[in-house]
């Protein structure tokens, strides 16, 4: 972590040697392209820049200026989990109304959108950027599906504009810049852990680019996420952490949890339904799960104060909407838990294939805060909670075997749907030092071979690029599909070992992307309430939903030399060289001649003594 920050700062230090001062908040007009480009990166403390910007529009809004073109929304979803834990998901969306499609036109006017990110977008011709930092593993079996999934560690995937010529060069610079912005070790991303998935990661925004030459995907499973990543993330928010939902984001509580994930997604979106004009959308999400035992003292009672040690008092003044949703689907008559204060507002949505009902608290309305002028949602469980419905799709992965020579990676994918088969895309990116024996790749479900209908395999090159394996596998209903592949552990050069080689080496999560048949379509109860004419064919948007599931990363031990080895090696080589050289030199330079039969040892000794005494020899 620290090293990541440090390196990134150095990178910025190099870039920052330009004429432009940092306090440029207004439009930077008519500067030369080259200059403005360097200025784009030079915004100095890129971390500090958005905050100063946030102040200016705040004044503008307070002054009652014309309705600004940019807008931002914030929301918090609380989902009580059956295990007694609670899942809190923050989403902050900032839209930047700028015409990015005109390439070459430099945008330099920023209101709500953080300047540091905007400059990155224009400098590196980024079309879409998704970055997530996660500490912990999402327990699908206990918690269900998250709203936005992410693998443990850091994940970064970027679509570049199709006009970019040197994608790899741009990518390399971009990760270093992002490393500085988020204070993370993203600069460890290089060609050995970057892949170009052909099918798993499609653009989520506008545009129809599917040529995966412009896509780069990398994960750092080892990345540890902590407050130093949270602070720069919070500074990208329009209100910072000063107002609105963001006041809840206190690190001492957020990191006292079972799971913590924060992400930034940037993509181009339509401004209206006809898509006549476009905008950049910046979505910042933060997901956190609080544990009933460690955070809740074993009591099934949650409140905003208990979770975040803060309550809500106002919405972010810049936000056009600011809402708190509480998932009350399992609790229609209040038999499972009490929720206070009570809100009359309910909203229904199909989320992840399931129809959910939410209580809504609108923070822009004054009555939400009540007499005390603060909102402290309290959620008190009453009864025993039952078991959770098994998620329709989940996966796990482990390394089999023992010893330090070979091993086998097993990936198990579960389809728990009772009668529907569906295809999934499996993406595996394995570092080169695990040499996959791809001929041993087997896919079996229900003890029979399951032939993938699409395989994209790119073998690794030592010290250059990782293995990439993408497969389209059909999962039979109610089955476990097992993907196994054997590997050999490579012996690294001694400088390639990490400082803690006996800890093991990480292999990033595999990614399983799927369109999962929806539970709603399965559910006959919900169709009963609806008009008959509407419910025969399942509607498209409800019949299946997109899910991405990440498996756990692997920790693999490689054969590790004893690192007192250099010492031994020096000693051994010196000895061998000395002995070998000595004897060879001796043999090569010696002249052989006939000699008198040698004297006995005693006689020779006697001669030595005689020589010392000066007496004639024997």
């Amino acid at each position, binding site marked *: 972590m620290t090293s990541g920050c440090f390196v990134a700062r150095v990178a910025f230090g190099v870039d920052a040697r330009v004429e432009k001062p940092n306090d440029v908040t207004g439009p930077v007009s008519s500067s030369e392209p080259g200059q403005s480009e360097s200025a784009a990166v030079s915004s100095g403390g890129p971390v500090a820049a958005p905050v100063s910007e946030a102040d200016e529009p705040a004044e503008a809004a307070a002054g009652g200026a014309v309705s600004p073109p940019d807008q931002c929304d914030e929301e918090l979803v609380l989902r009580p989990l059956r295990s007694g834990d609670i899942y809190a998901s923050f989403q902050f969306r900032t839209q930047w109304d700028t015409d990015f499609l005109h390439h070459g036109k430099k945008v330099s006017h920023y209101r709500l959108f953080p300047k540091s990110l905007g400059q990155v977008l224009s400098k590196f011709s980024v079309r879409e950027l998704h970055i997530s930092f996660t500490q912990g593993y999402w327990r699908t079996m206990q918690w269900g599906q998250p709203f936005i999934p992410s693998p443990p560690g850091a994940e970064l995937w970027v679509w570049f504009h199709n006009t970019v010529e040197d994608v790899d060069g741009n990518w390399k610079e971009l990760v270093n810049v992002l490393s500085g912005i988020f204070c993370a070790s993203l600069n460890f991303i290089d060609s050995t852990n970057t892949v170009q998935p052909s099918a798993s990661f499609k653009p989520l925004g506008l545009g129809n680019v599917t040529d995966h030459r412009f896509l780069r995907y990398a994960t750092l499973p080892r990345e540890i996420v902590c407050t130093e990543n949270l602070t720069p993330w919070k500074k990208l928010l329009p209100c910072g952490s000063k107002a609105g939902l963001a006041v809840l984001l206190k690190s001492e509580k957020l990191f006292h949890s079972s799971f913590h994930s924060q992400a930034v997604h940037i993509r181009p979106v339509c401004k209206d339904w006809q898509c006549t004009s476009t905008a950049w959308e910046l979505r910042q999400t933060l997901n956190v799960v609080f544990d009933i035992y460690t955070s809740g003292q074993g009591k099934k009672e949650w409140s905003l104060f208990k979770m975040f040690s803060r309550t809500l008092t106002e919405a972010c003044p810049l936000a056009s909407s600011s809402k708190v949703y509480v998932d009350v689907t399992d609790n229609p008559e209040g038999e499972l838990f009490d929720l206070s204060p009570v809100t009359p507002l309910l909203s229904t949505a199909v989320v992840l294939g399931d129809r959910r009902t939410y209580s809504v608290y609108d923070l822009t309305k004054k009555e939400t805060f009540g007499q005390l002028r603060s909102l402290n949602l309290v959620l008190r469980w009453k009864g025993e909670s039952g078991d959770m419905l098994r998620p329709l799709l989940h996966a796990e992965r482990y*390394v089999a075997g*023992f010893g330090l020579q070979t091993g086998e990676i097993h990936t198990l994918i579960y389809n728990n749907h009772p009668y529907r088969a569906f295809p999934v895309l499996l993406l595996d990116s394995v570092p080169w030092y695990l040499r996959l024996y791809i001929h041993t790749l087997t896919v079996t479900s229900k003890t029979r071979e399951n032939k993938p209908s699409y395989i994209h395999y790119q073998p690794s090159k030592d010290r250059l690029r990782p293995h990439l394996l993408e497969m389209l596998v059909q999962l039979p209903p109610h089955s476990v599909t097992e993907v196994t592949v054997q590997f050999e552990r490579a012996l690294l050069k001694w400088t390639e070992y990490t400082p803690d080689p006996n800890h093991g080496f990480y292999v990033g999560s595999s990614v399983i992307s799927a369109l999962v048949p929806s539970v709603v379509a399965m559910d006959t109860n919900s169709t009963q309430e609806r008009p008959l004419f509407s419910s025969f064919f399942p509607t498209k948007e409800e019949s299946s939903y997109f899910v991405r599931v990440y498996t756990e*990363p692997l920790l693999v031990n490689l054969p590790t030399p004893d690192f007192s080895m250099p010492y031994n090696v020096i000693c051994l080589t010196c000895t061998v060289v000395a002995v070998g050289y000595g004897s060879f030199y001796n043999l090569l330079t010696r002249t052989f001649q006939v000699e008198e039969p040698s004297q006995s040892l005693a006689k020779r000794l006697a001669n030595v003594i005689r020589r010392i005494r000066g007496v004639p020899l024997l």
Partner: protein
Amino acid sequence: MGLLSDPNRRKALTTLLTRLNTPICVVCYLAGIAWFMGLAFEPFTLRTYMSENAMGSTMVEERFPAGERALATGREFAGHKRKAGGMPVDWLVKTMQDRGLEVFTQSFSRTLPFPDENKERYMVRGINVYGILRAPRAPRTEALVLSAPCSPDNSNNQAVGLLLGLAQYFRNQIYWAKDIIFLVNEHDLIGMQAWLEGYHHTNISGMDYTPLQGRAGSIQAALSLELSSDVITSLDLILEGLNGQLPNLDLANLFHAFCQKIGVMCTIQGKLQRSDWDTAEGYTHAVQTMMLMVLKQASGRPWGDHGLFLRYHIEAATVRGVNSFRQYKTDTTTVGRLLEGMFRKLNNLLERLHQSYFFYLMPSLSRFVSIGYYMPAFGLLATILLLRALDLWVQLGTPTEVTEDGVGEVEPVSINNQGSFDSPLTHIYIDLVLKSWMLQFKVICCSPLRFISGEGTEQGWRVLKLVALLYLAVLLGCTALINFSLGFILAITLVPVAACVTPHLPKAVSALAMVLLSPGCTILYCVFIFQELQEAPVSLSEGWMLFLSVISQGILDHSLFGSLVYPLLALLVYPCWLLLWNILFWK
């Protein structure tokens, strides 16, 4: 180098070695034994120290409060165990779930090759129950294991109770960085073997088991707990695992450090440490402790449930509570605090335990002998074999008189002896092993054998002995590298036989001596010595019964867990002894 490149000096050296061969051998043998016995002498040993920085300097507090509740859980467990007539699976699953763990079960079955009389089992069927405490904000890559066997009789209930108590306490803590697996295994080692094979998805022993549903990444360390009474006087640490493998010494250091910190009496091999090393009693005590470790290690058996972890490169040890008649007692809360402390330190580990020694002997819990100190003892014994081989080599070389300088000595051995045997050496060796194996029963009847074609000449037996000596040296050398104790014990008895045997000895006496020094008899002596050291001496007939059960256990260990001692003795060491036997009865 001049010594070797100068033919005359070389000759002088070889003549010296051949002339003084016997005295040197005797000196080597005595020196080897003396060196070994000296290992237990305290001034010659090193004090143990914590090598791993992650465990050494970090502070942890032990706050486990709920020993009494753990004992109550243990009693509840005992009740359910009695009711279920075995592992109370449902109760355990529910109890673990209530404590906030992810609980899974694994059923297994195994039919032994023949009934195990010690434990009275033949068809083994059981269920392992384990719960995983998921560490907060950890990506399921690393885990620690705490296991307690569920034994069929009324013992070890307190261990399960304490395990559940610790699970409950650990679950409420935020500081875990590694997942913790709480495992209750049935049928001790067989259940453990099934679980480990299931966890690593291997099958080396032909076990039937259901695949595991939940995993927690690579296991970094494991502790197995055995506790059969509410209060204990001391805790015993058991280290010896399968094939004589030992866990990293830091694990023993960790245990010792916490025993001292918390004030629990701790033992190794059931022996307390004495402070009077300079007295004869103190020294004898240390020798006894070390000899017990050597004998246990040489047996190649896992001496606790931890023993099977070592194959998977997981550092593991068994902690056994001992309740004797001493005054001073320790309650379960204290044992719980000790385990909590150990787990918290293991939780702090950044890397696997690797800093300290993997090869060591312990004359007491605070003293150890590292591989560099004990290997010379074996090396001295192995030198005898090489010296004898050199002697024979020279003897074989002299009558041919190829050249004076000895360069041509290579040929006479393999070529000039065509009269004695037709086939090359390797062929003979394979032949010997196979034949000796087939004709074992004849050997047992002490009939002198001749299975090398052609006339038995002086040259013939010398070549045979040379082969036998070199073979034995290589065999013992390799064994000692893997399992020092086994190699050393075999060397003590086999080296004199190999060094002395010739056809010219008095047949009856030497045959008797050879039988007394055979590998089988070595095992018998070891049984008696072991019983003596454990202060449970046995009569001759009991000893014989024990000897038989040791042999059957060895075969069982081989087929169940893949222990190598039985095949090593039967396929490699015993044929070698037969070679020597053939030399004695050479015609």
